[in-house]
């Protein structure tokens, strides 16, 4: 098989990681691949900057629970928030396929306005490119963000310690399921909506209160919760043990994924944060998160141990154990 890019390289799992490691690492400053935003060194200051970028594509562009603009803005906000930083400024890069209706662009611009107001960020620059018909797919949106964090905070994926507990701020797999369902030719129906949300108001007060007791954060997106857990385990070289029954998953999610043979741990979320923190703040943090509407389903789902460093172990509902691995490529429905 010759080495070409396939959709699997963009699915956020194993092949995406390999692409970063084998190809992009040549120009990447540090092994930053497992963090959502870079922390920029502006020496001698009380505050540091964070800086991140994401490219967003979603089909359909409007879907139950959200749209491309919200996804793009919230996604970047969440990446900055995951570093414990306050999002401040955004830039946008539009890639529009020739033939798109300007009204669609207007609607998307309105949604950007709404989202950036909601998150109190300023969109300060942008760029627009139009690609010929058949060389795009409606609209792609690239969003970069700059945030500010206290220099004293050190929240990152290499910072997880044995004994740390893991909190997920709500149900997983909602977004990926909503998108599948929204596809025109999809033969299953369900009422699942995307969980697409910005997490600044949920997370930043907790960071303010618990400071360095929070060790790492990441919003699971492409590749699902299992990808983020594996990245954490690998970056901090710890074992993560997760209790399957504690992970909040809606019945409807099983209702959709079981017939397709898909695993909810590998499906995209868009408004959840995975938090690794000291066990001693666990309950307080949990209560704080649960008191916010976006965090009402928060749960402690696991612990950092020494069992098999670098790997994630799932304690299954019937009391078994298995490794929870990253997905290898696209999530394809199975017959078997």
């Amino acid at each position, binding site marked *: 098989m010759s080495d070409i890019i396939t959709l699997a390289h963009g699915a956020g799992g194993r092949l995406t990681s390999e692409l970063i490691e084998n190809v992009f690492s040549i120009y990447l400053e540090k092994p930053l691949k497992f963090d959502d935003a870079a922390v920029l060194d502006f020496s001698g200051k009380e505050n540091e900057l964070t800086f991140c970028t994401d490219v967003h594509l979603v089909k359909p562009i409007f879907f139950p629970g959200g749209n491309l603009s919200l996804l793009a803005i919230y996604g970047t906000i969440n990446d900055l928030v995951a570093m414990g930083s306050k999002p401040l400024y955004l830039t946008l890069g539009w890639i529009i396929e020739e033939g798109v209706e300007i009204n669609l662009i207007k609607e998307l611009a309105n949604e950007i306005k709404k989202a950036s107001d909601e998150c109190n960020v300023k969109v300060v620059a942008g760029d627009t490119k139009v690609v010929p018909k058949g060389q795009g797919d409606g609209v792609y949106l690239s969003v970069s963000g700059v945030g500010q964090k206290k220099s004293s905070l050190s929240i990152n994926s290499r910072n997880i310690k044995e004994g740390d507990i893991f909190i997920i701020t709500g149900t997983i797999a909602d977004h990926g399921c909503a998108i599948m369902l929204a596809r025109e030719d999809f033969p299953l129906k369900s009422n699942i909506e995307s969980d697409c949300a910005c997490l600044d108001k949920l997370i930043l007060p907790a960071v303010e209160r618990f400071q360095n007791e929070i060790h790492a954060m990441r919003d699971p997106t492409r590749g699902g919760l299992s990808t983020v857990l594996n990245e954490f385990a690998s970056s901090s070289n710890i074992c993560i043990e997760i209790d399957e029954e504690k992970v909040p998953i809606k019945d409807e999610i099983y209702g959709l994924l079981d017939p397709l043979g898909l695993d909810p741990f590998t499906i995209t979320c868009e408004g959840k944060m995975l938090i690794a923190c000291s066990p001693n703040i666990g309950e307080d943090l949990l209560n704080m998160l649960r008191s916010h509407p976006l965090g009402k389903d928060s749960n402690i789902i696991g612990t950092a141990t020494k069992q098999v460093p670098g790997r994630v172990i799932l304690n299954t509902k019937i009391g078994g154990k298995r*490794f929870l691995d990253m997905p290898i490529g696209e999530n394809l429905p199975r017959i078997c």
Partner: protein
Amino acid sequence: MCLAVPMKVKSIENDMATVDYMGTETKACTAFLPEVKVGDYVLVHAGFAMEVLDEESALEALKLWKELEELSFEKKEPKLVEEKSIELA
């Protein structure tokens, strides 16, 4: 070998049933189950209803297992076996 889930029949029109599984609704062809009726649970595979599930025999089986000698049951903590994940090239 063949992924199939038990779905509840909501309605039937000609040889197509509307079926539901935990909030997910889809269509299943009933060509193999001329006797199927609304309310039945059917095993759905690749868009076809393969068999009607028999509640009675299921309950019977469950009863058997539930009555398994409690005495011999002692919850043991599952342990990781010693071997680490094998080395990969």
